[in-house]
């Protein structure tokens, strides 16, 4: 492992040149990020960019291939004191098949020093988790609800939520977002949330990290990340003239009409030109931006 280059934070997560390979598959190619404690982070990017792997590495659930990870200035690998400050329920977490929901929740206080029985009880009730049902008989949505219940009740200073909404309907997702904020404002802590439902969860986040090809492509405050791209649509020649030398993330054609997602912020001059030449110019949503980065990355690997 390489020597430290980033001064470690007293409270927070420091990642320096973190790599992870599975055989010849280089999932993480050098992730560097400095994450102050007690914020809600959105961890975004297409499937396979390494979001789950990164969370598992930070929590010491798997070993990194290289680089450095520090939580509160300490390496989490085989460090029980640090690991007790983290909570990461895997998306495909298996429990003892014969344990009921109540039995899965019962040992919470033994694992997590800050465990809140009251939060566990409230979430289990709001998600209508059947306490006496065997964990192996839970539906996809109920397993997600159980994972959310454990994660929020843990009140772990570093809580990781990996696509926590799988199988949840709109009302249950609404409860999820409510409870994340309610718990967070009452007991501030670091929450890392990976999600593909970006538009409905973006307002929860303070900062976002967008992974692309195993590295951090964007790390910014959510309002700034929202301004990292725009969409312009109109006759091909005029659209190209407006874009100039800027990077086009994705483009779609309909006859002579071109819709392009462009990297960067639209300037007043862009807006004036768009108005004058009657082009539609609008900011891309964060979800559109992340999707465009993913599409660009797919198309690149097709060529390679």
């Amino acid at each position, binding site marked *: 492992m390489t020597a430290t280059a980033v001064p470690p934070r007293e409270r927070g997560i420091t990642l320096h040149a973190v790599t992870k390979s599975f055989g010849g598959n280089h999932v993480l190619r050098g992730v560097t990020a400095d994450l102050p404690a007690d914020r*809600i982070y959105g961890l975004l990017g297409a499937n396979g960019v390494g979001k789950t792997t990164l969370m598992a590495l930070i929590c010491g659930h798997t070993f990194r291939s290289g680089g450095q990870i520090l939580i509160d200035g300490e390496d989490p690998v085989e460090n029980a004191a640090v690991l007790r400050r983290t909570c990461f329920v895997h998306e495909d977490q298996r429990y003892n098949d014969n344990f009921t929901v109540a039995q899965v929740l019962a040992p919470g206080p033994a694992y997590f020093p800050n465990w809140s029985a009251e939060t566990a009880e409230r979430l289990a009730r709001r998600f209508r988790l059947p306490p006496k049902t065997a964990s192996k008989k839970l539906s996809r949505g109920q397993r997600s609800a159980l994972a959310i219940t454990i994660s929020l009740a843990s009140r772990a200073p570093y809580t990781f939520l990996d696509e926590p909404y799988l199988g949840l309907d709109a009302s249950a997702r609404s409860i999820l977002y*409510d409870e994340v904020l*309610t718990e*967070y*404002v009452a007991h501030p802590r670091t929450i890392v949330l990976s999600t593909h439902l970006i*538009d409905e969860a973006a307002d929860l986040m303070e900062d976002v990290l967008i992974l692309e090809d195993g590295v951090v492509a964007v790390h910014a405050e959510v*309002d700034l990340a929202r301004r990292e791209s725009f969409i312009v649509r109109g006759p091909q020649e005029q659209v190209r003239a407006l874009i100039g030398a800027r990077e086009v993330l994705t483009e779609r054609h309909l006859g002579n009409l071109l819709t392009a997602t462009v990297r960067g912020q639209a300037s007043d001059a862009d807006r004036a030109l768009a108005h004058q030449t009657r082009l539609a110019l609008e900011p891309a949503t964060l979800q559109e931006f992340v999707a465009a980065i993913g599409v660009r990355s797919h198309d690149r690997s097709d060529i390679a």
Partner: protein
Amino acid sequence: MSPAPDGRPIFLEIADQIAADILTGAYPQETPVPSTNELSVHYRVNPATAGKALNLLVDDGVLYKRRGLGMYVATGAPEALRARRRAAFVEEFVLPLRAEAARLGFTDREIVDFILKDSS
């Protein structure tokens, strides 16, 4: 609260909403507005976003901080907000109306007639 279609940051939307509630008298002068945490849970936004909205209104003199008690509506805030909106009225409402009317070929006389007819 969902992002504005024009990509305006959410904290500006929340600040506008609080300002509108002050204008209608929902938050009278010299009374507290909800805390950062209350706004965060209510609008379902990160507390940092809610905090930015409150700070913006403090910077504008609409709210002021009472140590240990939270944010209060400043005396004269409704009048100040109303004056600011009046100043922006032509640019935000009249000019776009005239621009669209011009695109559609309406004369100024016709616009005036529409307004008078609808308000009678």
